[in-house]
């Protein structure tokens, strides 16, 4: 316990050294790199899940179908907020000291052209039939004033569900696939009607709602639904960004030589500040103020530290100050990275579908030819997306999680005819002619994701929720999956292996690496602890390829057909919405400087 206590000094009690100097000595001890959240009035750091969409359209095909269904046509985003590795229990045992993140604020904003209108989306639309016509809209991006107050509502819902530990070889959290909402609880709902966005003096765009105070549970799974409630198909919400702001108690930063890529110089150890040297007078000596062992002289030593402010944590060059007072100087962090955002529902194969959207064949994905026809489609060209995220301040990466909205079937071992590979790396050489990478996490999801599925929200019927003809899709269920992307580790060295979700009954299936440090460096922070090159590396850890000078995080996602695109069976859906890659770990306190 880091809090300081003292003996009270009631009237009539003889003043002794204990009354003044014992508390000062306790403070002196604390100031030597031992100040924890117990001592801080403001003991929580914040982090945000930021979801950016190029545009959000109602996924439903038409406005005429059953509108009574909940969440019809919504974009679905699964996410988790797992404990960091040192707190992670593979059996999901919630300890009494496990901290919960608390949802403090939801904010959102979208590009409305600064007008009191809705924005016409990318899908051509037949008003008479009240449905999409399968062509590109010639009016995309235009101001639409047609009943905007009624037709441009937006709803944000968060569903919570228990993650059930599985002992099977393939994760099977439940057997009720008939309704995605059967096993979930709606814990948050914010609905804004279209009238919120039509004022010419103050629209609720962008908008935030704060002081929510809703704790999220570390081992539960969550689904954010972004729902265009108007069910007015031609409209779209352009450049929509939703931000969930959480707070969570701060913690000690990672340290030690089992943190891959951490600067070798300190290995993250706290640089304990030197003692302020409280000079305790002899017992029964005269009480003095200004002498070296006087009351005021020693209070002044504490005062001086406070006047100069308490120090701790890294600067942007991964360098800790030589004198640190703070012990708890790190906070929970999630960087949310969208890939393949804004796509319509995409299917594989050559099946002729009822064209509801612009570009819902796989060949509208970049880099692949006419995928659904021969002969151009007789290829196996993959498609890719990637994001570059600058490393401004250092962090350590504990987990990487991929959230999907329909992807290769997780319920069987022989799923789709395409696989998805996801990787996270560190890059150096920004704005240069040469550059290189150090791998941090990687998973090739080949046909099935046996052993890596954390959880899934499963079971709402495509035909029902998106008005697809049931015959258009052989697999008639849409689902959101959460997949653990393992960090790099040595398969033969237990010391390089970390802790994350237990997803099967075979430990080898869910191995991951110890946390990986990611931060820019200079001469003193350039030498780094060795790192493995891939998850399950059979070779020993080596010097990072970025040699202590990483400048950005890169996230890649590749979709690759295992057979020719035109031959992928049954035209199963590839995805309905964006893939989300969550980089989860610790960030560090910083100050505003250059």
């Amino acid at each position, binding site marked *: 316990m880091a809090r300081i206590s003292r003996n009270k000094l009631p009237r009539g009690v003889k003043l002794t050294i204990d009354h003044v100097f014992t508390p000062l000595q306790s403070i002196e001890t604390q100031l030597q790199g031992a100040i924890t959240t117990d001592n801080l009035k403001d003991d929580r750091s914040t982090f945000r899940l930021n979801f950016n969409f190029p545009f959000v359209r109602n996924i439903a095909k038409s406005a005429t179908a059953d509108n009574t269904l909940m969440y019809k046509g919504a974009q679905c985003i699964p996410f988790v907020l797992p404990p960091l590795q040192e707190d992670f229990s593979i059996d999901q045992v919630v300890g009494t000291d496990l901290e919960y993140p608390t949802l403090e604020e939801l904010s959102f904003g979208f590009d409305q052209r600064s007008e009191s209108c809705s924005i016409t989306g990318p899908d051509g639309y037949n*008003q008479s039939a009240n449905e999409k016509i399968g062509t590109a809209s010639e009016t995309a991006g235009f101001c639409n004033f047609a009943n905007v107050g009624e037709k441009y509502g937006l709803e944000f819902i968060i569903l919570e569900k228990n993650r059930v530990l599985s002992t099977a070889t393939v994760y099977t959290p439940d057997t009720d696939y008939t309704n995605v909402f059967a096993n979930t609880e709606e814990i948050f709902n914010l609905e804004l009607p279209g009238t919120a966005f039509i004022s010419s003096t103050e629209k609720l765009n962008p908008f935030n709602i704060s002081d929510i105070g809703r704790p999220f549970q570390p081992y539960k799974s969550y689904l954010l639904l972004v729902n265009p409630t108007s069910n007015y198909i031609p409209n779209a919400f352009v450049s929509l960004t939703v*931000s969930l702001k959480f707070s969570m108690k701060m913690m000690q930063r990672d340290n030690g030589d089992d943190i891959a890529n951490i600067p070798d110089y300190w290995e993250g150890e706290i640089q304990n500040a030197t003692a302020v040297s409280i000079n305790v007078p002899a017992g029964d000596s005269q009480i003095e103020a200004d002498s070296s062992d006087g009351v005021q002289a020693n209070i002044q030593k*504490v005062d001086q530290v406070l006047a100069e402010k308490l120090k*701790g944590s890294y600067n942007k060059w991964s360098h800790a100050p030589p004198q640190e007072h703070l012990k708890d100087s790190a906070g929970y962090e999630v960087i949310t990275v969208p890939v393949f955002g804004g796509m319509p529902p995409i299917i594989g194969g050559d099946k002729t579908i009822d064209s509801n959207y612009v570009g819902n064949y796989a060949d509208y994905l970049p880099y692949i030819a006419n995928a659904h026809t021969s002969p151009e489609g007789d290829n196996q060209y993959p498609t*890719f997306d990637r994001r570059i995220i600058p490393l401004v301040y250092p962090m350590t990466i504990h987990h990487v999680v991929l959230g999907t909205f329909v992807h290769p079937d997780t319920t069987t071992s022989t799923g789709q005819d395409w696989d998805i590979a996801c990787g996270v790396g560190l890059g150096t050489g920004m704005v240069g002619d040469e550059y290189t990478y150090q791998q941090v996490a990687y998973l090739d999801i080949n046909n099935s994701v046996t052993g890596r599925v954390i959880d899934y929200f499963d079971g709402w019927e495509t035909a029902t929720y998106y008005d697809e003809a049931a015959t258009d899709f052989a697999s008639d269920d849409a689902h959101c999956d959460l997949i653990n992307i393992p960090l790099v580790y040595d398969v033969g060295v237990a010391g390089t292996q970390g802790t994350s979700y237990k997803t099967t009954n075979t430990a080898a299936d869910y191995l991951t690496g110890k946390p990986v440090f990611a931060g820019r460096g200079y001469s003193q922070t350039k030498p780094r602890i060795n790192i493995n090159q891939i998850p399950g590396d059979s070779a020993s850890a080596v010097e990072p390829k970025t040699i202590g000078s990483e400048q950005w995080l890169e996230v890649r996602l590749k979709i690759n057909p295992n057979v020719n695109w035109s031959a992928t069976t049954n035209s199963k859906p590839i995805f309905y919405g964006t893939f989300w890659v969550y980089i989860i770990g610790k960030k560090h306190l910083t100050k505003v400087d250059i």
Partner: protein
Amino acid sequence: MATKLSNREATKQQFSDGTTIDGNRVEDAMDEIVENFNEIPKGKVRSRYTQTQIVAGYLPQQGPSYSASENNNLPWMHSVTAAGSALKLQADAPYYVLGSTSEAPSDFPLNSERYKGYAEKEGLTAIGATGRDGIWIWELPLSFSNPIIIQDVMFVMEGKQRTISGYTTFSNYFNYGASAPPGKTANYGADDINIVVHVDSPFAKEKREYCLKEIASHNVQNYSKFFNRHNFIEGGTMADDMLPPMRIQDSGASGYDMGIINAIMFRSEDLNLPISRDSRIRLSLGIPNYLTQQIYSTVNAGAPNNQYYSVCLTILEEITGGDE
């Protein structure tokens, strides 16, 4: 001896030669000291911010069948809002029709220019009903209840040429083409891109002309922003640089590694821009609507979807007691 005042950080009680000292004062002093040390306010912590990174990006749809309609460039939209940008719903027409504002409010357009601070370029294509919609704008609006500090803005636009069956993907070279605009030189880096971060006026939130510009980069010189141009131009190849490799698996001799970065990167670092509480900020990027041949691109030069992009806004937020 005169009383020498201390910093009085831990307690306001002062003990010096010539001042009184008694049990009450000592008790008050120690009470204050201990209380202050068990509840250290954030103002006493030098490093009291943490970063948040807002990541955005888009890989536009491409393909042989994809319509390259001038108007289907979402999330990019024209810079100018005028009569030609408005629609109405006609009761007996199967589609929306252009050009009428009969259902638009009387104050339409509220902001004929979508934000202030972008500059139209002489000699670049003018399109659209107004004849002057020469800029495409991408905008990211955000709202914060507590103060933040904008620290870093990054915008990476990548071109990645790949020709399959007659169509080319992300063909922007970011150079002027053979028909460079007046005053520009063919094959030189274009310098027409604008990046603006602005804050809505608290007194006229919907009037963009009153926005406060926090960052304004005009006429950004592409040449100083090229990212790995050398490898791209020289046709350099890269092995499995990182997993998954972005490589066409069976491209044969005609293909090359799609993982090679060919980009321009705009980066503004160490900004230290304080933004007050309850602010509404907008990150905007404008690119001109080049004529075909004005910009070095093999197809469809005017479309803003000839590159894919990553955006990252890094902000700092103060630690909290969870009660703010």
